[in-house]
């Protein structure tokens, strides 16, 4: 288990007010990983996972907080929101299943691929959710040797 004591820790507040700024946190974290010389394949997996999670926070939960940890052999992302929660995680994991409103789909999201994309790009994914309380996604991406 990694207790994150020796890891680089960055926190991003994700605003739920403005869809146009969604993705800034993921963009900034990608720059940080590039500066640190993390390999391209890992950066790509982290970027896709974090961006999909960030977009979900904006669409469904009025924003939230992302804690990102860069550790010796992996990267952990913890995305926490105080949104409505996910009523059926199994359905939410199905490709094509979406509860996003039509106006979000018109902006290019809500295709029902967010959580499946995250699952495909992470080595570990856990979802804790409670209706009316919120959702926490914990993702781990292992660094390439």
């Amino acid at each position, binding site marked *: 288990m990694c207790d994150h004591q020796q890891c680089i820790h960055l926190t991003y507040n994700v605003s739920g007010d403005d869809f146009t700024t969604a993705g800034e946190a993921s963009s900034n974290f990608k720059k940080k990983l590039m500066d640190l010389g993390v390999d*391209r394949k890992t950066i*790509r997996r982290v970027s896709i996972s974090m961006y999909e999670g960030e977009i979900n926070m904006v669409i469904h939960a009025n924003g939230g907080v992302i804690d990102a940890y860069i550790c010796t052999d992996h990267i952990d992302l913890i995305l926490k929101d105080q949104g409505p929660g996910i009523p059926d995680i199994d359905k939410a994991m199905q490709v094509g299943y979406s509860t996003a409103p039509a106006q979000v789909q018109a902006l290019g999201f809500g295709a029902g691929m967010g959580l499946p994309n995250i699952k495909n790009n992470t080595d570990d994914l856990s979802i804790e959710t409670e209706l009316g309380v919120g959702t926490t996604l914990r993702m781990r991406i292992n660094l390439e040797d």
Partner: protein
Amino acid sequence: MTLREIQRLLDGRILTKTSNLDIELNSAFSSDMMSHVLAYANDKSILITALYNPQVLRTADLMGISCVIFIGKNKPEPEIVALANSLGITILQSPYSMYVTCGLLYSNGLKGTN
């Protein structure tokens, strides 16, 4: 295929501050759904879309896509162009429809991303 060749094939207009037209781009992906781009596109490819919003550019940035082709004759908002400039992404505007744009590029040798 270079950006210069793509611009010529499409009678396209470059809207961003792009100095290197000789950059090689070896595949293309077209979609208006950004999750599809995140799932299937690769870097070194061009993104062709009719959607003009900041998330298109964020998606391109996160995927390492350096060139986005906007379809149609509507002018993107200045903030969109400014964001592309700040991210180092080229926007090329094609006057043709999505189908014709993709067809012109494909028939001239630019392969798709599967």
